[in-house]
């Protein structure tokens, strides 16, 4: 029998599969192919939703267009598991950013937004424009990582991108509203931080005693509202 089947329909380009790699015997990293975008991120959310219900999976840890599965015990057939995930990736519809909308009132500038002037200078915009642009944006929580309750927010206007500092602030307050590169975020802990603080919000991003400890979850949307401006 010939393997050439001229009558087979043309299916166009075959979509690339995710990259699957192990981190030891108890963790598997699944990375979406291609560039970062919210569509691939949504497919990661959908994949994480399904696989986290598998008995073998202790938890699915979402990253930026990737997800790490953590196992309680090493999977018996690791190749089979990888194959099921690839199959699921191609079959599963993505999830939209359909989580809750979180409105965060921000005191822009002032003592706790001490890098606002530097952002204004770097971007060539008046501080008021930086504030306006930041507060008019709508942001999507891609992942929670790096410190408890810290959301990786997508959607920062390129006009106010600002590189991280080469020397971190030693004691940045929890609640600081920050810009780091092409991302914005709300510091969840008081700690050294290399991002640029442009304001502050009195919102508890994380409380280990709450039933839902992290205020932000992947797929949520965030809006910053001007509470006050201190220039």
């Amino acid at each position, binding site marked *: 029998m010939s393997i050439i089947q001229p009558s087979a329909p043309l299916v166009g380009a075959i979509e690339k599969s995710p*990259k699957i*790699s*192990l*981190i*030891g*015997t*108890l*963790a598997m*990293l699944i*990375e979406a192919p291609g560039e*970062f975008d919210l569509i691939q991120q949504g497919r990661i959310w959908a994949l994480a939703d399904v696989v986290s219900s598998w008995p073998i999976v*202790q*938890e*699915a*840890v*979402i*990253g*930026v*267009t*990737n*997800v*790490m599965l*953590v196992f*309680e015990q*090493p999977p018996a057939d*690791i190749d089979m598991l990888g194959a099921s995930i690839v199959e699921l990736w191609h079959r599963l519809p993505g999830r939209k950013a359909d989580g809750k909308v979180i409105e965060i009132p921000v005191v822009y500038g002032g003592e706790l937004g001490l890098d606002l002037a530097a952002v204004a200078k770097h971007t060539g915009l008046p501080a008021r424009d930086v504030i306006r642009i930041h507060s008019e944006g709508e942001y999507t929580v891609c*992942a*929670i*990582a*790096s*410190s*408890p*309750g*810290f959301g*990786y927010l997508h959607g920062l206007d390129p006009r106010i991108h600002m590189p991280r500092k080469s020397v971190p602030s030693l004691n940045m307050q929890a609640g600081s509203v920050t810009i780091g590169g092409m991302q914005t975020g709300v510091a*969840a*802990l008081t*700690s050294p931080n290399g991002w640029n603080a442009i304001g502050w919000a009195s919102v508890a991003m*994380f409380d*280990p*005693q709450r039933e839902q*400890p*992290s205020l932000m979850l992947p797929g949520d949307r965030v809006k910053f509202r001007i509470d006050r401006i201190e220039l």
Partner: protein
Amino acid sequence: MIEILTSAAFNTIQDLGRHGARRFGVSTSGAMDPVALAAGNALLGNDENAAGIEIQTFPFRLRFQADAAFALTGADHVSTLGGSTVRPWWCTRARAGDILVVGLPRRGARVYATFGGGIDVPCVLGSRSTHLRAGFGGIEGRTLQAGDVALIGSTKGNSDRRFDFGVAPPDVAIAGAPPVEDGVLRIRVMRAGEYDLFSQTMQARFWSTKWKISARSDRGGYRLSGNQLILDAPVEMRSHGVVAGVVQVPPAGEPIIQMSDANTAGGYPKMAAVIQADLWRLGQAAPGSIIAFSEVSYQDAVAAMVPVNDYLAKLRATANLYRAL
């Protein structure tokens, strides 16, 4: 109850870790040598996940405010109870008022003090481990200090049972673990995601180098020195989850092994990952130690845990039998 009398920096209450909360950005914490903590708990008839004290700065002193059984496991060291020597990998009964002094290890980095019934601090997100960075777990989420008082859980009906016996430590009792040769600790690893991005020269360098655990190493991670692993073409990685044991290579080329307090996310190329069966051995390697990596397959890595689990199961069975005599 126990009262801490002397504790230098970095001694904390730990159990086997806070699992299942990485997705909220919460690192696991937990004992750097989970085998030693589990063994101490097994000697006492505790749940293996009961909380104990991880001691990594010495001397450490505490006073028993009531009679209690306790065990010391982990690093080989000398302790005294009321002035008499207490052997490591041994469980003993203390009387109210006795003072326990835990001295500097001769070998290994961390001693675990476990207590009959376990240390009773509140469970936060399913664990009693201290999360220093976020300030919860253990006692107020911080390192122990003189004057701290901790409750010990109850040991139902165990009060008149025997608590004066010991076991062989795992580095002696577990067969199949690679020996320490010429002062070099062999650590078994599996290749990780970006191994193939490194040139053959760099891969060979990774395996042949005798790496030193630098002084800038702690529960968060071990920084290695001794060589540089440089990519021909740098890669920009997106932030992704990592687990303890991952060997990441920052642009400067000196690898970092993430440990118990590691961040939940990483973004550096991953060369390898320490297998679970050797993570506890790495947890006992002090700064200044020399390590070298050996490659194992997934199947070998899984199989390497069998003797570790057998060791703990036999230890528990023997201790239960002895205590019931």
